[in-house]
């Protein structure tokens, strides 16, 4: 459900929908026909302690109908009281953009950076002309708001502002120039709620607007993710036998923290288990137990995967004795993260695959306990059936100047992206320009292979790695919402503090299509005809040289040849299934491709983003002619013919040009770099566009000088509507 323009918390919706509660007003304990603050006092009169059933006349107090009157019921009552007064939830916090839609609503901000809010006067006309007080308040849950609706601005005082009816630009307010604290300890920053106090009474109540009621936070200020966290750490090096050597780092005050998630690191071939201290230290200082183990990589991937499996079991089975029992009972074995590098990166995927296939049965954990896998520049020796992440949350970190697992077109083994595209769960990639294979450990040989002057070096590559791993694990293991934005927002606009401004990082993100209930408009997997999308709608176009097919460069060169339309694609081998489309346009004529939306998919309001991934075609003449970020325009059209358009660089850059590495044929440009672009659907309605998101009949991509770059060659995939 989109956060914007939602007036009732989810929990409340479910309570009101419960048939047993529809007979009378739930929570109306003073029986006056309305649910208000007086009912809270009446509820307390019915509360007899934990696990007590409702007494005579107190049935109203059991709001969730579970047979007891407890704090869960009070929380629901408080939400009802709030809802009774029409407090409106809306996305407020964000940052202005220089082009339409002129504002991006987001949750995550770097400490020291400006924070803004905005309302669109056409979507919230009730606020036009109103002079209000705008508060930035320490984050409170819905229940906390229910019990304490007082507004206390963390900045010392609220801002006064009068909303205009002109535009969202006119209603953009700077809340902070970078003074909001991010000092949240291991919580990784601090959360805040933003409130428009319409009646200026200093209390969240009738008519007010809030960002951060039911979903936890309105905005979150993140610290420098490249720096170690606040906790002291301890470490121990020990062995349980052959290929059971481990070094484990944990927060020294682990006993006070209670059970914490386990991160397991499996090194690559010719590497050592002691080479990842930078990452172990970073994560342990934020409260994780991080074990790196000897990995039997030289025989092959099966052997490597066995050592990942057995080392994880060994640590869990022997926690009573390891390091004198310092970890005993304090490892949360239901939250395990596997990180592997190169052969070890494939090994961790293979390990998961073996459990998934029933070929290996761990003794002390299960498949479901593996909540996240990340591979650093993995190999693909075993191929489609055996090195498959299946439905686990999967991430890949990869350097464009990798001289070892190079992505070279003449060999499937060093094409890391195969593994990413096999993942059917939520998947994301972090592709770092100028990083080589061993930049992600301390001590491997320098195999940088790229143009002079583009090498970012080990310290910078490890800053990227530390930031992305902290964000990944916080997001997937602890549900940290803002950390998730580090994974998918365009790096040009939102990169971790501490990472150099000149460092180029290209990100991919695709939520699990099943659990997220995305609507796939076209992923090119079925309906191989270019005239039909995979969802069954018609596709029309006048872009040039359009070809659908397997995302697999069909020869051993990156040199552009007409006979290899998928040149530069390293996302599949012949037994894989990841397909997409490529096309180009050139100077002189604007071009388009348009997807008709099938009737069942025309209501876009349940979704939050229009998402797709795109890449430039390496060494193609049109790519070479531009050699810069590629920009185009996305237009939505509703049933009445109303359109709204957005350039894809509104929230950052365009589609990155390929890293200008040479080799494997004439020209410069390495493997194609898919990059995910996510356009917020509500933003297509800004400034009175009039677009009806309940009945969108077409999505159109438009190219040419009227819409962005005058020429270019594009690969495209995974056009979908997502709820995150």
């Amino acid at each position: 459900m989109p956060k914007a323009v939602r007036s009732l918390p989810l929990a409340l919706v479910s309570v009101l929908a419960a048939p047993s509660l529809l007979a009378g007003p739930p929570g109306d304990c003073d029986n006056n026909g309305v649910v208000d603050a007086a009912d809270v006092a009446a509820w307390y009169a019915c509360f007899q302690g934990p696990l007590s059933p409702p007494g005579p006349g107190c049935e109203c107090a059991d709001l969730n109908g579970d047979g007891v009157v407890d704090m869960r019921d009070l929380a629901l009552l408080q939400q009802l009281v709030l809802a009774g007064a029409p407090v409106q939830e809306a996305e407020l916090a964000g940052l202005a953009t220089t082009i339409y839609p002129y504002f991006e609503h987001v949750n995550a901000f770097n400490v020291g950076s400006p924070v803004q809010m905005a309302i669109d006067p056409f979507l919230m006309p009730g606020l036009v002309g109103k002079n209000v007080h705008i508060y930035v308040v320490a984050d409170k849950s819905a229940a906390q708001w229910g019990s304490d609706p007082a507004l206390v601005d963390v900045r010392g005082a609220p801002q006064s502002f009068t909303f205009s009816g002109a535009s969202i630009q006119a209603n953009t307010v700077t809340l902070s120039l970078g003074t909001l604290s991010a000092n949240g300890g291991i919580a990784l920053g601090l959360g805040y709620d933003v409130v428009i106090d319409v009646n200026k009474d200093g209390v969240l109540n009738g008519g007010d607007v809030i960002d951060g009621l039911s979903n936890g936070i309105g905005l979150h200020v993140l610290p420098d993710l490249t720096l170690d966290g606040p906790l002291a750490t301890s470490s121990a090096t020990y062995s349980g036998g052959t290929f059971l050597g481990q070094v484990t780092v944990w927060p020294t005050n682990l006993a006070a923290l209670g059970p914490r998630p386990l991160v397991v690191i499996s090194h690559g071939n010719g590497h050592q288990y002691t080479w990842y201290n930078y990452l172990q230290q970073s994560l342990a200082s934020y409260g994780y137990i991080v074990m790196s183990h000897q990995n039997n990589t030289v025989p092959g991937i099966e052997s490597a995967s066995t050592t990942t499996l057995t080392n994880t079991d060994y640590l869990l089975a022997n926690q009573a004795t390891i390091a004198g029992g310092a970890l005993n009972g304090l490892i949360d074995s239901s939250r395990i993260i596997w990180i592997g590098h190169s052969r070890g990166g494939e090994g961790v995927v293979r390990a998961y695959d073996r459990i998934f296939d029933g070929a290996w049965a761990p003794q002390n954990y299960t498949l479901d306990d593996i909540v996240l896998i990340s591979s650093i520049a993995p190999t693909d020796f075993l191929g489609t059936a055996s090195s498959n992440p299946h439905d686990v949350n999967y991430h890949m970190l990869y350097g464009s100047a990798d001289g070892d697992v190079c992505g070279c077109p003449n060999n499937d083994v060093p094409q890391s992206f195969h593994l990413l595209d096999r993942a059917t769960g939520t998947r994301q990639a972090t592709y770092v320009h100028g990083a080589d294979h061993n930049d992600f450990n301390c001590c491997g040989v320098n195999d940088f292979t790229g143009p002079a002057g583009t090498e970012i070096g080990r310290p910078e590559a490890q800053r990227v790695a530390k930031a992305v791993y902290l964000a990944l694990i916080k997001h997937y293991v602890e549900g940290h919402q803002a950390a998730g934005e580090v994974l998918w927002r365009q790096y040009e606009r939102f990169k971790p503090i501490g990472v150099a401004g000149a460092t180029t990082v290209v990100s991919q993100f695709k939520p699990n299509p099943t659990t997220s209930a995305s609507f796939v408009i076209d992923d090119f997997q079925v309906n191989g005809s270019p005239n039909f999308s995979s969802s069954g709608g018609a596709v029309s176009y006048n872009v040039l040289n359009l070809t659908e097919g397997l995302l697999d460069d069909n020869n051993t060169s990156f040199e552009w040849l007409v006979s290899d339309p998928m040149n530069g694609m390293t996302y599949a081998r012949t037994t894989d299934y990841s397909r997409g489309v490529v096309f180009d346009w050139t100077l002189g004529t604007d071009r388009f491709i348009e997807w008709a939306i099938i009737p069942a998919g025309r209501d876009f309001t349940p979704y939050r983003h229009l998402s797709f991934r795109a890449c430039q075609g390496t060494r193609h003449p049109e790519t070479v002619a531009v050699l810069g970020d590629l920009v185009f325009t996305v237009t939505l059209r509703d049933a009445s013919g109303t359109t709204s358009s957005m350039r894809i660089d509104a929230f950052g850059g365009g589609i990155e040009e390929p890293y200008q590495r040479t080799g494997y044929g004439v020209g410069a440009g390495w493997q194609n770099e898919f990059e995910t672009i996510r356009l917020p659907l509500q933003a297509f309605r800004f400034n009175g566009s009039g677009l009806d998101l309940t009945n969108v009949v077409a999505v159109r991509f438009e190219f040419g000088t009227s819409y962005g770059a005058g020429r270019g060659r594009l690969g495209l995939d995974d056009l979908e509507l997502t709820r995150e």
Partner: protein
Amino acid sequence: MRAIMRHLNPMTAALTLALVLPCAAEPPPCPETPATIERLLYLRPFTVEQPFQHVWRAEQPAVTRGVLIVVAVKPDLVYPRQIAEPVLYVGRQTARRVNVGYASGRVIAIVPGDVNLETDPVWFGTPRLPEQVDARIIAQELEAAQRAGIRPVAGEQLRAARSVEPETLKLADEEALLREAARLILKHAPDEREQAEGLMLSSRKPGQPEKKEVKP
């Protein structure tokens, strides 16, 4: 550089290469195979009381005896790669390399089973994953090596290698064998101290770890 280093003693070669490596880039191309070793430096039979699996070939035979060897090699053959590396063979067996050997040009390896270095050649075959190599592949690789003119090491070299530590190692298990291999790494490939220490780590049991603490 490689040619110069072959004429240096292992310690000097390692230090020289260590000074050069941080500036190195783009991995060397993988040499053509089959490729012979340069010299057999050490050969010692061993037995273990507790069998262990030889996971360096597809059949994964149980190992109770074999030989420990040290060979001088062209470093590019053992450059640590994530993609397939040349497989070290001894006769009809795959050898288990216990160190990398790139900087020193010295590889310490365990060869399981009954091997006869008087008749069995030692060579690097086609790059692949050793765990996928089976008897059929070994036979093909041996045939290719023989066609390429690769022969068993000369008798004098063999005798010299045997004479370093001629008595059979009688060990309890794989861990003890790896500790012996670690000792050889420290002697022949001293730049790989970390690898040697890792192999000897098995003597550091969980109850007596090396511990450190870092303050924020």
